[in-house]
């Protein structure tokens, strides 16, 4: 009896393995950034509804880095077709792609995403600048010409116009793509603006270490890394009414009855101010297509065309309604043309 059992089990595995290898995949597989995920889901769903002859693509989340790594595993039916990313692919990643046989990668830029600071709806209005953020959250700041551990404990010590609240900021954790934008557009910019970078430059650090010193975040519990999603940040703000959270624009707009958004450099974040480039803290969103899979996986080309169509990424499309900031008309057209022409990333 036991022998039959184990034989049957082995047989089941063998049958499964052979059928798995034999059946052609008829469904697009996408993986990557959790920021791009909601947009990819909307497009995937609409794609499935608009083209009854294709199945709805499967969209995994897991982060830009993880998605690109999966994407660069190689070419074939058991590798994914598209990687979503909230940042551009790095040269090292492209190299690992090429080494694994993924020679032709097409880059598609779908639009922009803004990062906003928000507080509990009942709090006062906030007007931040990169300098305020730097002075409040950097690990070291300049006091009397010397670089010291950040002594600020209240927001109004940083800028008298800010409220008398203990500093408690919920910022994206280090594995988030959002963190890079936060570091680059706020901390590094604030470092420049407060002339702290000049003091750091006198310390004799090499360029890389100086840049790292500028964007180092304080570790004394005033700046709290959130490794989960924005829903967790919102829960923290709910629990601590004097906390300041960092959110994606789309998430803020979906929860505008609970949150009050802060201006940065006097600009209110909105799809208009981000697409015009006035609001400083924004980033482009991408996805990457495996050229070798076009024409092999049914519907892949149609999916990308559908994604780039103005009825999806355009100003009146559902992605903008969800919170994506549409790229200007000319850029959208350029993306469509580049994809149609089959342009690939150069190593």
């Amino acid at each position: 009896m036991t022998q039959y059992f184990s034989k049957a089990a082995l047989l089941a595995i063998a049958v499964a393995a052979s059928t798995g290898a034999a059946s052609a995949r008829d469904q697009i597989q996408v993986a990557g950034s959790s920021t791009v995920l909601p947009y990819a889901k909307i497009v995937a769903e609409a794609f499935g509804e608009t083209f009854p002859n294709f199945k709805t693509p499967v969209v995994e989340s897991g982060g830009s880095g993880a998605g690109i790594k999966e994407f660069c595993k190689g070419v074939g039916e058991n590798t994914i077709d598209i990687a979503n990313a909230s940042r551009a692919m790095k040269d090292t990643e492209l190299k690992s792609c090429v080494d694994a046989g993924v020679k032709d990668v097409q880059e598609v830029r779908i639009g922009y995403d803004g990062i906003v600071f928000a507080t509990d709806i009942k709090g006062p209005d906030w007007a931040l600048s990169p300098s305020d953020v730097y002075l409040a959250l950097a690990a070291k700041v300049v006091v009397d010409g010397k670089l010291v551990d950040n002594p600020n404990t209240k927001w109004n010590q940083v800028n008298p116009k800010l409220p008398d609240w203990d500093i408690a900021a919920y910022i994206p954790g280090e594995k988030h793509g959002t963190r890079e934008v936060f570091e680059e557009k706020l901390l590094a910019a604030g470092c420049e603006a407060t002339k702290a970078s000049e003091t750091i430059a006198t310390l004799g650090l090499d360029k890389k270490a100086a840049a790292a010193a500028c964007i180092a975040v304080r570790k004394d519990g005033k700046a709290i890394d959130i490794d989960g999603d924005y829903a967790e940040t919102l829960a923290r703000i709910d629990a601590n009414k004097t906390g300041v959270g960092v959110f994606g624009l789309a998430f803020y707009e979906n929860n505008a009855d609970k949150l009050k958004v802060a201006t940065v450099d006097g600009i209110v974040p909105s799809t208009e101010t981000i697409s015009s480039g006035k609001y400083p803290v924004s980033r482009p969103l991408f996805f990457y297509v495996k050229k070798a899979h076009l024409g092999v996986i049914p519907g892949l080309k149609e999916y990308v065309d559908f994604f780039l169509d103005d009825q999806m990424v355009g100003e009146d499309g559902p992605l903008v309604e969800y919170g994506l900031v549409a790229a200007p008309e000319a850029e959208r057209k350029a993306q469509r043309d580049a994809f149609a022409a089959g342009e690939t990333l150069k190593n």
Partner: protein
Amino acid sequence: MTDTTLNAPAVAARPARRDIGLKRRYAAERRFKMYGIIAIAIGIFFLAALLYSVISNGYTAFWQTEVNLAINFDPEVIDPDNKRATDPSVLLTANYPVLARNALAEKLGVSKTDRPAMREMSKLFSDGVRGQLRELVAANPSLIGTTQNIWVLTGADIDSAFKGQIDISVEESRRKVSDRQLGWMEQLKGEGAMTQRFNSGLFTYGASSRPETSGLGVALVGSLYMMLIVLGLSLPIGVAASIYLEEYAKKSRLTDIIEVNINNLAAVPSIVFGLLGLAVFINFFNLPRSASLVGGLVLTLMTLPTIIIATRAALRAVPPSIRSAALGVGASKTQMVFHHVLPLAAPGILTGTIIGLAHALGETAPLLLIGMVAFVANSPVTPLDPATALPVQIYMWANEAERAFVERTSGAIIVLLLFLAVMNITAIILRRRFERRW
């Protein structure tokens, strides 16, 4: 006289003999009981807090706001060129939302030329109406040209507002539902045309970017397939391995090593099995990504040690006298195992298996790496199709931005808890009913 002399010292010695720390020992006993009660009270408090937060957030997910519309299946909208007889695909691509919009405009008295009002009004019903009406028409094309009263889902924000989950005291521009939409809601509610109905879609729809049309359908099918695979593979393999180790194998260094390894494997974090699954089943055997087959195989690996340990304990609990008696009346070793030992050990084995399955049902980590934490809209037909699992769906919904997903997250947790409760109760009943004590 002799009596008194004998009794007197005994009476005198009594107080000394009775001082045996009785008070202290009673106090210690009372203290220990109290610690026990406190421990249980803490446990019950946290359980109650968990259940309260889940149920109070989640019970609303089982009802969904719907609006009753008198939809006129206008052939001018569905099939303007009248070619459905020759080209049935027009029925699939027709603009069904327009039908619902026209019906609602008529009901609310909104002018079809007032475009801003029409746009605002379209938010009252879900975009999912396209699929709903398409299915109706595709199943029964004779509906075209008739008018039917149909319940359609409302948009997610309207549903949240109807359930009182959106704070309508804040100013209008800061919330997702406008004053005009609230007015329409009141009007429809007064007419009885908008009400909450049982949300059967929660159990049938797949993943969706629209909260109102997203459901656990794909996750339930995926979890079912995985449980069947886990049961079908890990029970026979686990039982065979344990019987061999317990009844046949001679105790040697090798069996000791195997035993240590099995106990170790039972404690390995489940994500490690996910990595193994990715490397072996997907990269080596070329099985498809995101398929419940791969998920089932990974969970089988994870459940096997639990089942082997439980089975071996159950086999060991069968007294040796049973074995000796069977062998004594001339049974072979195999007959002894399968006719006597295994039936007596079965309740213990089944309990262990069910607990192992319940554990596997609640796992997400190993599924992450094999691509099952994903947006899957099409219901899987075979175990080779992409699917998700119940805990995965909970995780994905917990990360959504829309308010309406909050109740769905808790609703899905309730469903998962119910499944786990049913499985564990089955395990207890099996044990109670068939267990033998010696």
